[in-house]
């Protein structure tokens, strides 16, 4: 069994309530942080832990905190990004539903470190039932003196609020999220200025993912040193992985960073292998926006080394033969999955979710969706395959926010690794008109290893 920092007590009955949560040591980090540490010490501790943002980008959390404009006389804010909406990613939902007090505890310590007196949890609107869970937990914390004025008898006061979004993936981008929190359309802002200088209401603001903030209590409780002992190199600590698709045991798993990918897919402790006794075809390892890898490259790097669940190992080979840990949204496809159709569902998603502010993204995502639709439905031409690559290249790096890149990367990687499958669609239009074509006759690209 791997180390569990976040989910250690997740199965304890009533852990979502304050008394049970406290009986398991909950809120100890608040006591320690507020009574024995300074904000500077806290920021240093988080920096030293090497905690990297768990939302997808993987930016070091402590470093992000240190960018906060602490000389400003404006109010400072912590905004928790709970707008989890990326296909394959559903870990924050589990964390908030099961352990709402862990998030609140992390927010109290983080706000103290940042000098924030208000914090908002911006949660995707579809998770409305979790809004109620969080609000109930926040009420409990106020009643226990863990929120509000003079927390635990100290000079520190803090108010926390839950703010529901209304169905827009783009609001997971931190500046779009801030626009949305201000009651506007979720259009990303041009950067700089970054939120740490001018964020919510043009005040210094830190935006962190739910899982990042939920990791803070452990770092403070056990110290950064011991947190750092878990994991490999700059991939420290544990990570929640949301596993879905063609596996025997879809769900949320907390892994120690450094776990071999093969063990994650095949061991009973985690995914339990490929469903229906089928073979592994491909994996999207970090949410729909990261490059897709065929079976051979997800299990081993191009150098033949075992691929590990770390930021570095998954990225080994760059975008040619590697991918990204991203949000930890691990989507597994067996031999019957049609890569083109899967990619079309992603393209449809990005087209739907583009805010429309930048032309390359607004128009390009639509083009990619249309071209993929016609290839998948048996109306494609060979030149469409290169057209897709060309459109993806024209989007990448040419938009205000990373949604354009997120839409382009899966396209480029799918064609790189599965080009023959795209060609098959063009050559045999009659066969692919049936949406379940590969269930009857699995297609394996030449040179792609399928593991049993």
């Amino acid at each position, binding site marked *: 069994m791997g180390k569990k920092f976040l989910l250690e007590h997740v199965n304890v009955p009533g852990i979502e309530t304050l008394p049970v949560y406290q009986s398991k040591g909950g809120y100890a980090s608040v006591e320690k942080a507020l009574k024995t540490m300074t904000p500077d010490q806290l920021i240093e501790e988080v920096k030293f832990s090497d905690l990297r943002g768990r939302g997808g980008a993987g930016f070091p959390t402590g470093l992000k905190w240190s960018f906060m404009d602490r000389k400003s006389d404006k109010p400072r804010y912590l905004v928790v990004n709970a707008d989890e909406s990326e296909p394959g990613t559903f870990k924050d939902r589990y964390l908030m539903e099961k352990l709402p007090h862990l998030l609140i505890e992390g927010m109290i310590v983080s706000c103290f470190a940042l000098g924030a007196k208000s914090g908002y949890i911006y949660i995707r609107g579809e998770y409305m039932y979790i809004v109620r869970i969080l609000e109930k937990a926040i009420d409990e914390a106020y009643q226990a003196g863990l929120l509000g004025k003079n927390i635990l008898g100290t000079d520190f006061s803090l108010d926390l609020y839950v703010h529901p979004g209304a169905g827009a993936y783009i609001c997971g981008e931190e500046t779009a999220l801030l626009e949305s929190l201000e*009651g506007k359309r979720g259009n990303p802002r041009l950067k700089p200025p970054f939120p740490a200088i001018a964020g919510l209401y043009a005040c210094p603001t830190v935006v962190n993912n739910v899982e990042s903030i939920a990791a803070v209590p452990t770092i403070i409780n056990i110290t950064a040193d011991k947190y750092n002992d878990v994991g490999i190199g700059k991939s420290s600590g544990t990570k929640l992985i949301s596993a879905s698709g063609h596996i025997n045991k879809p769900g949320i798993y907390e892994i120690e960073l450094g776990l071999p990918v093969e063990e994650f897919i095949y061991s009973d402790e985690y995914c339990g292998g490929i469903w229906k006794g089928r073979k592994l075809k491909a994996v999207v390892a970090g949410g729909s926006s990261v490059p897709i890898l065929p079976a051979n490259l997800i299990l081993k790097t191009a150098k033949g080394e075992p691929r590990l669940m770390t930021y570095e190992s998954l990225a080994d080979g760059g975008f040619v033969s590697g991918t990204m840990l991203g949000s930890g*949204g691990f989507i597994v496809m067996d031999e019957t999955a049609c890569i083109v159709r899967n990619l079309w569902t992603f393209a449809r998603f990005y087209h739907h979710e583009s805010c429309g502010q930048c032309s390359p993204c607004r128009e390009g995502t639509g083009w990619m969706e249309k071209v993929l639709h016609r290839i998948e439905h048996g109306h494609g031409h060979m030149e469409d395959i290169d057209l897709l690559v060309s459109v993806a290249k024209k989007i990448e790096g040419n938009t205000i926010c990373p949604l354009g890149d997120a839409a382009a990367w899966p396209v480029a990687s799918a064609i790189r690794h599965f080009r023959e499958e795209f060609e098959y669609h063009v050559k045999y239009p009659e066969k692919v008109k049936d949406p379940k074509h590969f269930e009857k006759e699995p297609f394996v690209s030449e040179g792609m290893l399928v593991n049993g």
Partner: protein
Amino acid sequence: MEQIKFSEQTLALVNRIIKRYPEGKQKSALLPVLHLAQAEFNGWLSAPVMDYVASLLSIKPVEVYEVASFYSMYNLKPVGTCLIEVCQTGPCWLRGADDIVEHLKNRLNINVGETTSDGMFTLKTVECLGSCGTAPMLQIGAKYHEDLTNEKVDDILEKMRSENKRSSYMR
């Protein structure tokens, strides 16, 4: 014409929501208040409802329109008593979302985007709802229905018909 006005209880909640934001930043309450408005006024946001919300928050009506038309959870046209939203993205598709949509279309005798002739059901497909590990799934109001099979879908439809209650994200 009936005057558009929140119930006393909802108005009190609106005022509490506005206080979550700094003074003068009441526009921040727009998304939560629109959710309340949609729940209270028949499941959709008509122009008069949006005008009313604008007046409550002391902002221009166009500021409400541009927001309401941006976010997918707000309905700008009437919907059935029960709005069924089926996730169809990647992981849900891998686990059979297309079959669930087909089954719903057959059972309800409508296409995606349409409402049954009795006004009971509207069928909508949506992008990822964060339920990939329990796919395929659909959402009705605030409730997620997961690990779907055709039989489960039939049970859900039956239950919704017998309850005959408007679905809302607020319940």
